[in-house]
């Protein structure tokens, strides 16, 4: 992943892309698995840092992550290095650099969240994992529910069919009604 691509992904999460840049980053996401992983991390980081989530448990996580990050010297150095290189490369787009820096600062948090949501992720620095105790991981996994909690595939397929048929009647969030279908089990 290049610095340009990271900046584009961060700007996408911040809702700052339009026109060609939006097309460019969507093309990148369509062709690069790494870009998709990176985007997921940025989005998670953004939500955690903004305190979005499901109630107090999420806030506890934010507090724990902040405490863990305070001890992460390694990422402080990365932050300083990134600031210099980006200023030289993109002097006319300082607003994007700022977004990039905020994201770089949260890379540690992202890495930890990434471990909890995607255990198979090989890009996560192992040093960060030690900062979080086991109880946090257990709590987050218990919240995962992007697919039906059933044992048989046949039953799962039947429930999916029913969900599809039911979707036309979800009035309050009509714009997003099919998001569950298109997202079903994607995190698995």
């Amino acid at each position, binding site marked *: 992943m290049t610095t340009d691509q990271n900046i584009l992904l961060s700007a*996408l999460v*911040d*809702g*700052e892309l*339009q026109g060609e840049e*939006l097309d460019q980053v*969507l093309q990148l*996401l*369509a062709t690069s698995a790494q870009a*998709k992983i990176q*985007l*997921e991390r940025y*989005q998670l980081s953004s*939500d955690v840092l903004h305190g979005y*989530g*499901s*109630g*107090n448990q999420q806030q506890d996580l934010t507090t724990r992550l902040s405490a863990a990050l305070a001890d992460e010297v390694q990422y402080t150095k990365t932050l300083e290095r990134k600031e210099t290189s980006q200023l030289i490369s993109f002097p006319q787009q300082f607003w994007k650099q700022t977004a990039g820096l905020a994201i770089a600062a949260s890379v540690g948090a992202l890495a930890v*969240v990434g471990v*909890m*949501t995607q255990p198979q992720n090989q890009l996560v620095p192992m040093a960060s994992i030690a900062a979080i105790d086991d109880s946090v991981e257990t709590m987050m*996994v218990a919240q*995962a*529910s*992007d697919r*039906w*909690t*059933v044992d*048989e595939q*046949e*039953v799962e397929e*039947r*429930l999916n*069919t*029913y*969900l*599809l*048929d*039911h*979707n*036309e*009647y*979800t*009035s*309050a*969030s*009509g*714009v*997003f009604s*099919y*998001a*569950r*279908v*298109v*997202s*079903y*089990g*994607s*995190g*698995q």
Partner: protein
Amino acid sequence: MVRGNKLMRALFQIFLSLCLLLSSMHAYADEKAIKLLERTTAAAKQLNYDGVFGFQAGDKLQTVRIIHRADVQGEVERLISLNGIERELIRTNDMVTCIYPEGESVQADRRPLGRGFPGDLLSRLTAASAYYDLTLGKQSRVAGYQAQELVIKPIDNYRYGYRLWIAKESDLLLQSNLISDRGSVLEKFSFSSVKMGLDITEQSLTPQMKGNEMAWHRAKARMKSHREISAHAGTSIWKVVWLPEGFSLIKQQNRLKAKNGAPVEQRVYSDGLSSISVFIEKIRARHGHLHGGSTMGAVNVFGTIMDAHFVTVVGEVPARTVEKIGRSISHRDSE
């Protein structure tokens, strides 16, 4: 004695009416909030837009691109998952096509759609105000647009609440938080970027999902025409005895299940905002089915087997609601 019974019945009816009146008075609906909700519902169907939104349930986050076009031909919508498993969904007026990878090929399933909410949805939304407190919240910024928050709190614990953020100029829904009875966010949809009022080309609504090793394979869908579907409506032998206050039948239809051809009856009940579907499917062979409840994000289901039928209740309502409805369903012949 007969006279005494009549008196008791009359008193009971008055008591019921008073209960209904009191519960209606409990709900508070800001008229501006209702109007905003109505405009938002209409905007979702009438606007052209192209955006990227995040969908968060529990600790899972998915990013989805949505392209929506509305013109004299009706609505066309395309959703593309941007992370995790690659998926696309195309929805036209009466058909939904899900495209997803299977092995090294791409599978496309097509299903006929129901007709959505009936034409009187707006009046149903107004009626829903008896069961929710609707108030305008703060103004804030979502996806770069000024947005008005709309807070929707249910009067009981049989339905969820919502916090909606609606674009001030266009009335498009920009963010939706589904709130549990404990006040926590169960699901969140939020645009990170969206452009409105665009000319949406045919190409942008055409599925692009393909890969070097992937070959197109289109599943044969078994479908019924709307005439066939509606022919069975209104002849149900099933009865739903209990529903939360304010819920009523808004749709009933029969479809063929795509895989084994078993007839499936769908009955949709709604209070104007929340809705549940009851699916009743005749068992044709020895198949497994859900016994009890299951959850996916904020959607709960309850399943049981009754008189050689799979009975399943699905809805964006708490688990207690689908279970209570499911346990109240009975076969008219068994009475």
